[in-house]
Each structure stands twice: as C-alpha cells, then as structure tokens.
C-alpha cells in the first residue's frame, strides 16, 4: 500500500471506531437515565409505570410513619398540591425529615404506591435541591390558575 492509502485506511478505521463507540455510549446512557417527576406530574399520570424514575418534593408534615420493630417507613411526598405515598425498606439518610426536601428513586406499583430503593435528602438543613424548589414553584403556579 502507498502511504496515502495507508493514511486513508487509518483515518477510516479511527472514524468507524469513534462512530461505534459513540453509538454504544448513547445506548448505555439511554438505558441508565433516570427521569425526574414532581408529584403533580405523577398524579396526572405522566410518570412511567414499569420503569425506575425519581420523584422529588417535600416530606409531608405528619405523614412519616415508622413501622414498629421493622426497617420500613411510609411517608407522603408532596409539592403542596398533590401527594404521592412512598414506601421504603432501608434506613433513611440522616437529614431525612418531615417538612424537608427529598428525592426518592424507585418504581410506581399498580396500586399507586411508590416503592423507593434510594432516598436522597440534602446535606444541609437550609439547602433545597433546585429540582424540588422548581417543582414546588411550578405546582404553586398551576394551583393558582
């Protein structure tokens, strides 16, 4: 092969490799995306049923129930307009409290109960996740109309 042909071959192989890896990357990414929904969106039926997603809002005051003698909690996640019941079978993080922001990861079951396998509370008592702050503001705006 001439030098020019060699170079073309090299460039071709590199391009093919890059396209293949980019395609693979997008596929891997799409399979692992977790979408975020607010309680209002879930109540409107926008959230998927069979797929994991994230639900964010406040832990409704007075809704937190500790199962006696078992590692299980139930609470409501609310945006002050709609509330979604959540069940969790692990020890919640330190800053998980009523009236504070929370983002839960998990799936919705057929009865409309959100089974969470991960809770994310904030690291500082005053700071709220921008996602939660936004969905609260949005819910307020919708309720006002």
């Amino acid at each position: 092969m001439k030098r020019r042909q060699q170079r073309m071959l090299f460039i071709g192989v590199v391009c093919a490799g890059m396209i293949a890896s980019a395609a693979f990357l997008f596929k891997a990414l799409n399979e692992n995306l977790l979408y975020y929904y607010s309680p209002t969106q879930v109540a409107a039926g926008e959230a998927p049923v069979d797929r994991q997603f994230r639900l964010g809002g406040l832990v409704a005051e007075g809704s937190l129930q500790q199962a006696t003698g078992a590692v299980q909690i139930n609470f409501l996640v609310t945006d002050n307009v709609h509330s979604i019941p959540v069940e969790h079978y692990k020890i919640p993080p330190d800053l998980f409290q009523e009236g504070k922001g929370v983002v839960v990861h998990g799936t919705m079951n057929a009865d409309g109960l959100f089974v969470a396998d991960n809770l994310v509370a904030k690291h500082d008592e005053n700071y709220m996740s921008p996602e939660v702050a936004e969905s609260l503001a949005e819910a307020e705006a919708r309720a006002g109309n």
Partner: protein
Amino acid sequence: MIPEIGQFALVLAVCLSICQAVFPLAGAATGRNDWMMLARSAATGQFVFVAIAYVVLTYAFLNDDFSVLFVANHSNSQLPVAYKFAAVWGGHEGSLLLWSLMLALWTLAVAHGSRSQPLEFSSRVLGVLGIVSAGVLLFTLLTSNPFDRLLPGAIDGADLNPLLQDPAMVAHPPMLYVGYVGLAVPFAFAVAALLTGKLDKNWARWTRPWTIGAWIFLTGGIALGSWWAYYELGWGGWWFWDPVENASFMPWLMATALIHSLAVTERRGIFKSWTVLLAIAAFSLSLLGTFLVRSGVLISVHAFASDPTRGLFILMLLLVISGGALVLYAFRAGNLESEGGFKLVSRESFLLANNILLVVATIAVLFGTLYPLFLDAMGLGQISVGPPYFNMIFLLPMLPLALLLGLGMHSAWQKMVPGALFSRLRWIGIATLVVAIAYPLVSFGSTSVLTIIGLAAGIWVTLSSLIEPISRWFNSRAVRLTRAQWGMFIAHLGVGMFIVGATVTSAFNIESEEAVRSGERWEVAGYEIEFRGLSQVEGPNFMADEGEFELRRDGEFVATLRPQQRQYLVQTNPMTEAAIDDRWYRHIFVALGDPLGDGAWSVRVQYKPMISFIWWGCIVMALGGLLAATDQRYREPVKQRKERKSPGNAAVAQGST
C-alpha cells in the same frame, strides 16, 4: 480592622498577579530582559500577599470574629479549634482563597525551581501562571469576597456543617486542591512551549516531575475523599459516580495519560503535540471541575448554595484560559516535529494505547456528567445518569488497559520482539489465570465471569509489576533499577492492588439491615453480632446515642464496635458515625439507624472483603509517583543545552518567535 488588612492584601495580590502576567510575557515577546526578570519577584510578592490574606482569614476564624460574614456563616464559638482552622475551606469563599493560595505556592515553587531554564521560557511559564492567578483572584475579590463584613456582628456563628466536622476535613480539601491546581503547572509549561515554538526532550524533563507531583496529591486527595465518604456518609460505598467525584476524577485520568505521554516525549522526542494537548485538557478539566462544583449547577454534598453570576464568571475564565490555549495550539502545534519513529510492538505503542484508552474513559465519564446538565439547560427535562452507565463505560476501556499495562512495562523502546515478550510473561499469565479462578472459589465459595475477569486484570497487573524488581533482587549481577523505574513498578503495583480490592469488594460484599433490640444476636457473613445496649455520650459540641455491638466469629471474640447517632447542638442535624472493625483482608462496618419504637433500633451491618486494598492501592500508587518524581535526573540542574544538529530540532527552532 484586621479583616480589612486581608482585603487589602488580596487587592495587592491581584495587582501583582497582573504584573506577573503582563510583563514577563510582553518581555519575552519583545526580548526585554528587565521585564522578564520581573516574573520571579512578582510571583514571590503575589504569594506573600495571598498568604497574608489567608492567615488573616484563619485568624478571624480562630478568634471567632463573627462580624465577618463568612466566619459567621461557617463557624461557631463552640467549634473545636482544629475545625475552626479547617472551616476556612468549609464554604465557597474561603475554599477559593485556598485555591489561590495553592496556586501561589505552586507558582513560587516553579519560580525558584526553574532557575536552570532559559529566561525566555521560564518567564513565559510564570506569565501564564500569572494569568490564571489573576483570573481566580479577581473572581474571589469580585464575586466571593471572604472578608465581607456583617454589621452589626453576629453574637455567635451558624456553625460548620456537621457533615464536615471530621478529621478528614482537615486533609482532604487542601490535598485535592494542591493536586487540582498543580495541573496549572504542566499547562503553563505547555503554553510556554507553544509560545516559544520549541519543545524538546529537556522540556519534557522539566515538565514531568511537576506533573507527577500534582498527580500524587490528586491521587491522595481523591482517595481520602473516597475513604471519607465510605465511613462518614454511613452508606459503606466508596465511589458513587457523583458528578463532583467525576469532576476530580477526570483531571486525574488526564494527568495519568499526560504522565505516560511525557515519558515518551522525554525518552524519544515524539508525541509532542499530543502531550501538549493533554496538558491543556488536564488543566481545563480541573477548571471545569471547579466550575461544576462551585457554580451550584450540581446537586451534591459539595455544592454550596450560591448565585449564578459566580458560575458565569468561572465559565468565562474557563473560556479565556482553555480557549486561548487551544487557539494557540491550533496555530502552533504544526511546528512540533517528531524526532523518531517506532514499531508496532514497542513500548511507545503500548503507551499510545494507554493514552487512547484513558482519553476514551475520560470522554465517556465527561459525557455522562454533562449530559444531564445539557438537557436541563435546554429545558428538555431533568434526568440523572445512573451508576450502571459509568460502571460499564469505565470498565470497558480499563480492562484492555490492564492487559496492555503488563505488556508495556516489559517492552523495550522502539522495537520489541513479540516472542521475547511472550516468553517473559507467559508464566505470569498462567499464574494469573489460576489465581483468578481459584481464589474466589476457595475464599468465598462462588464466582462469576465478571469476577474472574476483574481479578485476572488486578492480579496480572500486580504480578507483572513485581516480577522485574524481584528477579533483579535475586540476580546480583543485574543492573540496578533507577529510582524512576522503581517508581513505575510500585505505582503499577498500586493499580493492581486497587483493581483486586475493587473487584472483590464489589463481588462479595454482604449488606444487612435489621431491626434489633438490646441483647439480640444475629449473623452476617459468618460473624455473630450482639447488640449490647445503648448509652448517652457527650462530645464537645454534640450529644450522641452510642450503641455497643460485640463481634464474634466461631464463638471467639473479635471486636467491640461503638457506632453513634449524633445530634449537634447548633445545626441540629442528626449524624451517623459508623464504627468499623478494620483488618487488611476485610472490614465489618456497623452503623446505627433510627429507633423503631418498642425498644428496637435499625442497624446496618456490612461485610466488605478486601476493601482496604482500594485505599492502600492508591497510597502505593502515590508512593510510586513520589519515587518517580524524585529521580536523580530531575534533581541535577539541566546543563545548558547546546543546539543539536538533528534536523527535527532545527525545524522546531525555526518556528520560534
């Protein structure tokens, strides 16, 4: 009055950093020696004033000066002294000042370590560092002044976030910052080489120890952060692919690639433009990391609530510094010519593969980190990318990297006979396979394909790093290894240990969460655990419920563990303090959960085999780096270079301004 001295020192530091940026660069361009000579004094002066500002802020913390807003927000009169000292970097403003201080320190070190280099070159390096300093100091002064007053002063402070009140807080951020900021040095060397139009083996020899130095601190800082998250956050995980972790990990990957590429440039005078590009990319990623962490676009443990103007400023800084360097690269990289070639099977090829795989891994991690931000900014919804994505896209390039690492270490430069490589390594290959298949079956009674692959990668790297030093040890006639070679083998041994630890922990960790009452016993991973009861303990600024757990194996006492559930007095957050029985071959991790009513408590117990290898591996890697960076050839002053007559060098020299 005293905080104003800090403010004033900061203003002077900005002025000096601008001098440090303008005069040496202008002097080098116009050939004015007196302007170039200014660089060193300006750098020294800048360091002195940043240090004064830093000391003043620390003084305000130690003396509980709550008329300084930043102190009032991040400290409290009850805070233990060590944390008052560390609280300086417990918030956005102070941590930026720490960033500037680290940069000033590196600059000072470069200023006084570069006396053997040509004046034109060293003043350009200092000039570029001056631009970075000026940008960051201006950012501190204009958007995040740590000396802003709170008038009238607060009676007491809001306290440091309890999460941060941990011994690791004293070491992790400064160490990480030294590493992060240290990447500015190879960046400055690269830009100076582009400006000069001259990049030879001496350039690589100057740049290498600085790069390795920054890399050592980055390695240590990331490992410390991982260790901290492991025991403090109470989840027992050691890496979460959190965007902020990624922000520090991407510069590390690039710095690793850069070290290897510099090795080729130093030894063989090739890969020049690639090395320069890596140096630019590594520092750009560390600036990007600063942007991600400090602008508040990320939701994370590290994100301090902040206002958007700050993010915009850092983004502009990133554009100017990295964009400028890339434009310069586009115009000048063509002048950098290779001084030789190499065969397909040679150390150069393996190092090239190392570089490509590390860059691919970095791009994949970058993509997963930025994609959610991009979608959010476009208003296309809020998503997050799960850890399975990162695990997969990171492991795919890393496994071949592990295989090639063993081969590359034992290859000769320029040309290696494949048969010789095979005969040197075949026994290691066989031993690797035997151990990787047998070890999990013998120790844990089960295995899987992924476990075998991961273990094989780790053991392969470990054994191939050990074979050369050991065989030379026993052969008295063999040539002794240089310190840099020792460094290489030891650092790679650390990589092997890390892979083994990460694989075994991921494959065989056992986690249990139970509701238990005082006096109850249960079993986790062959260990019997008894909950002996609860007591109240009092710390300097917190109250805690402390559980007592006794750990037994086959009826024999192993350890008593005392995890706590703390309640801090000022910021009334509850905080879990896990207790760990740490042995080199496994950790037993116990964390106290919540009272469940009826006298029961939730308790999380985790069995983590080989997990300490993850951090020991990092320590060994850093140690290897230390040996490599302190090799004899970097310490002796580089002799005044004579113009070599090789055609490659002449062509490069012609491109100089």
